[in-house]
């Protein structure tokens, strides 16, 4: 029973830090340089403890708080531990970065910010620990609430307010769905402990309803299409460390919930659940990546890319569900492992990238890609660390992103044996789509990095942008190291994921992988597929060195610096580079139907000709605005009831009386 107690202590430490910050409400220096690093260390400890707990037996605990007769139950098993590792590790890097990030005068006073921030962390940790419906919902909503206040840190800006409102609204709708989900699960027993929910044997209809509610609820949080619209609004609005936490960690709690309910509490279920998840995940992945390639605002771009990655994760889960429903344990484990590894990988590189944007934002005060560029020279630290990030984000070998995509594709590749021919037909298409998504992600990342850091500065002020500070570098480096390490040594990841898959699908890859030592990654046996990141890297490095040697060997001429050639055209300047719009233009053309594009083209007669193109989300105009209009007109209709005329009011009363009297006489 030691781990969970330690974890509770650490979480308590976070809360204590937050409350302590209230006493130094406006002392930015102290809050930032002392409290945040302390929080970071707590996060590290949390990650360590839960990493150890993951390989131990499940532990349970009870809090005194809760409803009468229903104290909050906590449980620490492999699944929770896995996500606690994500939370702890994410918290460490992000808090370290925040220590260097928060400056004076960011709207909310720093002390309050610190409180909200640490409550947010604590709530996320408790969400994955919760072992009964009430505790889960309380922590879940606390998480949403604290993150909402973090997003509104700079509430003087109307756009921020709007974004935060949208975020909380959708989060609340999701929460209501979850409420109903638990209502279905408890099956009139009035006992909300997960143990009881697990024990309930619901019919296919009820369990499908519960699953549906769960998908809506967690989808709203994870940003699954069509509930994704809040994500690209909220992430740019929030301070960068907050965006990092939300995107890298908070979205994962939704994944956790979905896993917990669909695999654990509902015991897998029907095959079409998997198909549903597959479809949703794929839709999100495609839409997210396509949109991220055409964004012109760096944090929006990353936000859409988060939608894409969540989509990939959910796709893996869907596949795992399908396999599980046909009791193909190994394949289910493979798909689920892919999803879980991607959870880790995405947590790492997305935090890295968001924090990087924070550094850029502070250095330049500019978030519009069209005004950035050439920062590699002025801020090399941030640039090179983020370079690692985008390589990881593009899913390129030998980094973290590739491992998960590799596993995912593997699991798609060996699905020919499904007894359901329809799925058999479907699977290759899905695999193709995944490949497409991966390639597009690469496109988006190249655009992101190239436009921000490469080329010539598009604004004069960018030349004297200052590099990331010490704490910020530490935070960035932590995640960069994670991306590299996970990419090179996937076997430990497989072990960690194995603990989860053992619980959820009753099987794992640990043995098969361990059969081939610590470097070779061969989940299905070497003859099927194998990948040795370390050797791979060594090979590339060796070959590259070989190239260098050859060049040195054969090389005769000298080398000098000169102005860029550019086909001999002398008058090139920074404005001639491709802008973000330009870079995304081909995608805009190819995926025209995805977007709601409004274009203004200059005519020869314009005195001041200009070109503007506005790319919007179809869902916003297709679903959300009509719903809003509907509600509004309904409200107007209802308003007629209150027309101020007392006779009419009396008439209501009279008619109701008559109606009820007839009711009882019949």
């Amino acid at each position, binding site marked *: 029973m030691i781990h969970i107690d330690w974890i509770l202590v650490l979480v308590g430490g976070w809360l204590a830090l937050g409350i302590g910050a209230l006493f130094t409400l406006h002392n930015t220096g102290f809050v930032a340089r002392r409290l945040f690093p302390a929080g970071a260390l707590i996060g590290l400890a949390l990650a360590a403890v839960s990493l150890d707990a993951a390989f131990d037996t499940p532990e349970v605990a009870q809090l005194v708080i*809760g409803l*009468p*007769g229903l104290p909050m139950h906590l449980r620490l098993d492999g699944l929770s531990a896995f996500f606690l590792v994500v939370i702890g590790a994410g918290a460490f890097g992000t808090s370290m970065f925040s220590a260097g990030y928060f400056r004076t005068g960011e709207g909310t006073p720093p002390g309050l910010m610190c409180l909200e921030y640490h409550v947010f962390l604590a709530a996320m940790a408790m969400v994955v620990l919760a072992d009964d*419906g009430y505790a889960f919902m309380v922590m879940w909503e606390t998480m949403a609430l604290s993150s909402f206040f973090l997003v509104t840190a700079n509430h*003087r800006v109307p756009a921020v307010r709007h974004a935060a409102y949208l975020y909380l609204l959708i989060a609340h709708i999701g929460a209501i769905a979850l409420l109903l989900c638990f209502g279905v699960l408890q099956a009139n027993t*009035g006992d909300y402990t997960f143990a009881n929910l697990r024990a309930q044997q619901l019919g296919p209809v009820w369990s499908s309803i519960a699953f549906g509610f769960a998908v809506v609820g967690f989808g709203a949080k994870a940003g699954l299409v069509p509930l994704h619209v809040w994500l690209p609004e909220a992430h740019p609005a929030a301070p960068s460390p907050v965006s990092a936490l939300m995107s890298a960690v908070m979205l994962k709690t939704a994944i956790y919930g979905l896993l917990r309910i669909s695999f654990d509490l509902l015991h897998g279920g029907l095959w079409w659940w998997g198909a549903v998840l597959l479809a949703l995940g794929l839709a999100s992945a495609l839409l997210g990546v396509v949109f991220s390639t055409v964004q012109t605002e760096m944090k929006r771009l990353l936000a859409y890319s988060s939608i894409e990655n969540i989509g990939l994760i959910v796709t893996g889960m869907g596949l795992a569900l399908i396999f599980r429903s046909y009791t193909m344990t190994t394949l289910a484990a493979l798909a689920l492992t892919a999803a879980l590894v991607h959870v880790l990988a995405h947590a790492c590189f997305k935090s890295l990238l968001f924090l990087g944007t924070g550094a850029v934002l502070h250095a330049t005060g500019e978030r519009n890609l069209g005004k950035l560029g050439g920062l590699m020279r002025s801020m090399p630290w941030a640039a090179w660390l983020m370079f690692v990030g985008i390589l990881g984000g593009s899913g390129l070998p030998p980094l973290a992103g590739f491992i998960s995509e590799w596993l995912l594709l593997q699991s798609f590749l060996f699905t020919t044996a499904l007894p359901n021919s329809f799925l058999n037909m479907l699977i290759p298409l899905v695999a193709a789509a995944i490949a497409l998504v991966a390639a597009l992600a690469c496109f988006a990342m190249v655009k992101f990095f190239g436009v921000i850091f490469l080329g010539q500065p598009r604004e004069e002020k960018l030349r004297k942008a200052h590099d990331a500070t010490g704490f910020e570098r530490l935070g960035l480096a932590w995640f960069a190291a994670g991306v590299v390490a996970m990419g090179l040594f996937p076997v430990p990841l497989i072990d960690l994921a194995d603990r989860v898959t053992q619980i959820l699908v009753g099987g794992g890859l640990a043995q098969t992988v361990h059969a081939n030592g610590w470097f070779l990654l061969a989940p299905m046996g070497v003859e099927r597929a194998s990948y040795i990141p370390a050797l791979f890297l060594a090979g590339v490095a060796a070959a590259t060195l070989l190239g260098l040697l050859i060049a040195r060997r054969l090389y005769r001429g000298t080398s000098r610096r000169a102005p860029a050639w550019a086909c001999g055209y002398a008058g090139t300047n920074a404005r001639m580079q491709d802008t973000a719009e330009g870079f995304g233009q081909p995608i805009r053309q190819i995926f025209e139907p995805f977007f709601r594009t409004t274009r203004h083209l200059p005519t020869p007669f314009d005195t001041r000709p200009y070109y503007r193109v506005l790319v919007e989300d179809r869902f916003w105009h297709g679903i959300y605005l009509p719903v809003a209009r509907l509600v509004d007109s309904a409200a107007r209709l209802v308003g007629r009831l209150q027309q101020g005329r007392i006779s009419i009011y009396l008439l209501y009363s009279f008619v109701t009386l008559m109606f009820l009297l007839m009711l009882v006489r019949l």
Partner: protein
Amino acid sequence: MLPATFPLFLTLLLPVAGGVVLGLYGHRDKGPELNAAFSAATLAAALWLTAEVVFGTSVLGFGERFFIDPLNAFLVALTALVGFTTSIFSMPYMRIEREHGKMTGPRMRLFHSMYQLFIAMMLVALTTNNLGVLWVAMEAATLTTVLLVSVYRTPASLEAAWKYFILCGVGIAQALFGTMLLYLAADRVIGGGEGALLWTHLAAVKEQLEPNILALAFVFLMLGYGTKVGLVPVHNWLPDAHAEGPTPISAVLSGLLLNVALYAILRCKVLADGAMTNGLPGRMMIGFGILSVVVAAFFLFRQRDVKRMFAYSSIEHMGLMTFAFGLGGPIANFAGLLHMTVHSLTKSAIFFAVGHATQRAGSQVMDEIRGLLQASPTLGWGLTIGSLAILGMPPFGVFASEFLILTSAMRQLPWATPVLLLSLAVAFAAVFGRVQAMVFGDTNLAATTHRPALFPVFLHLGLTLMLGLFVPPFLGQWYRQAAALIGG
């Protein structure tokens, strides 16, 4: 050793005395303090009474005319508490109103004495064992509040008070007819005389009461007291009265009066359920409840006036409670009682905050209130947290009860839950959008002369928070017993 009835006696007597005294001295400078003092004394007495009940069992007093059982014990304490905090809040508030010239000396006197009498009447209504007296007390409470609503003498307040009087008067009249039928039914079993209206006696023989009469009686009682609960479609007086009366009155109306009316319905439901086997009362309440929730949610959506908005939110929550009690069963009843408590705490806290905000903005129109957080952080946070709590955000108590209500409804009444879900979402969108606009951004508010009394706001919110995370054992015990009492 004093008899257990003594604190009860005090609890009822003190506010009456306060009404008299303040009727004489309420206009003095120290009038508000005097008011608060009497409320404090009442609270002390009520707490004493509560303590007695916690350690003893149900109390019968004055020859069975008054009694305390789990169902009304916590309501008495709650009423006294909110009455006290409201009087604290009204000290600076009313002073400022007086400086603004909206209140004069005589009006202050009227306000204070009526306030005390109103509290007294509600306490009587809660503790009486006689359904007839219950009716009398409810009517009296209406009369006192009518005067309080119209205290500004503005056209709007007059109109509101007039509507309040007429609509509630008619409603209450129907309730009287219901009570009469009840008496008629009891007459046949127990025989005439006062005993035939004592709830304890009726509850003892409820199975033998004539179902046909009880059905009619419950219709009249439901509609009558339902008018005061503010159930759609007989809610129309509520938003006007809340919006045009002084804010302390809006607070006690939402926080207390509606509860007392619902309490009356509950007492009658117990008898009706006992007599009728077909569960008609429950279905009736479910119908009223759902209707109220849905309609109120959509009313919320297009509000301009902040007090009106929160008045509609009260309708919504009363609807939710009615729905819960109609649903019946231990969980739903428990949740309903919990919701009664936390709603009155939260809603009154919100009205306190709103009151100060409107005073600073000099308007109740929400578009003219901006940047509360900037103007006064504590006030801003009070309003924000209060609104989030009332909208069912954990870890506040409202969430706890809504959690229980919705989850239990999900399996008993699957068709109803999507409707409730939709309405809750709409309500959230409406209220939170408005509140956010008022709280955030750059402010346009002036400074006030008197320090706002924010202690009540945070006291209430603190209690709500506590109830969301931890319900004291004796309270939980009461809720359970009361839930069993209501049965259904």
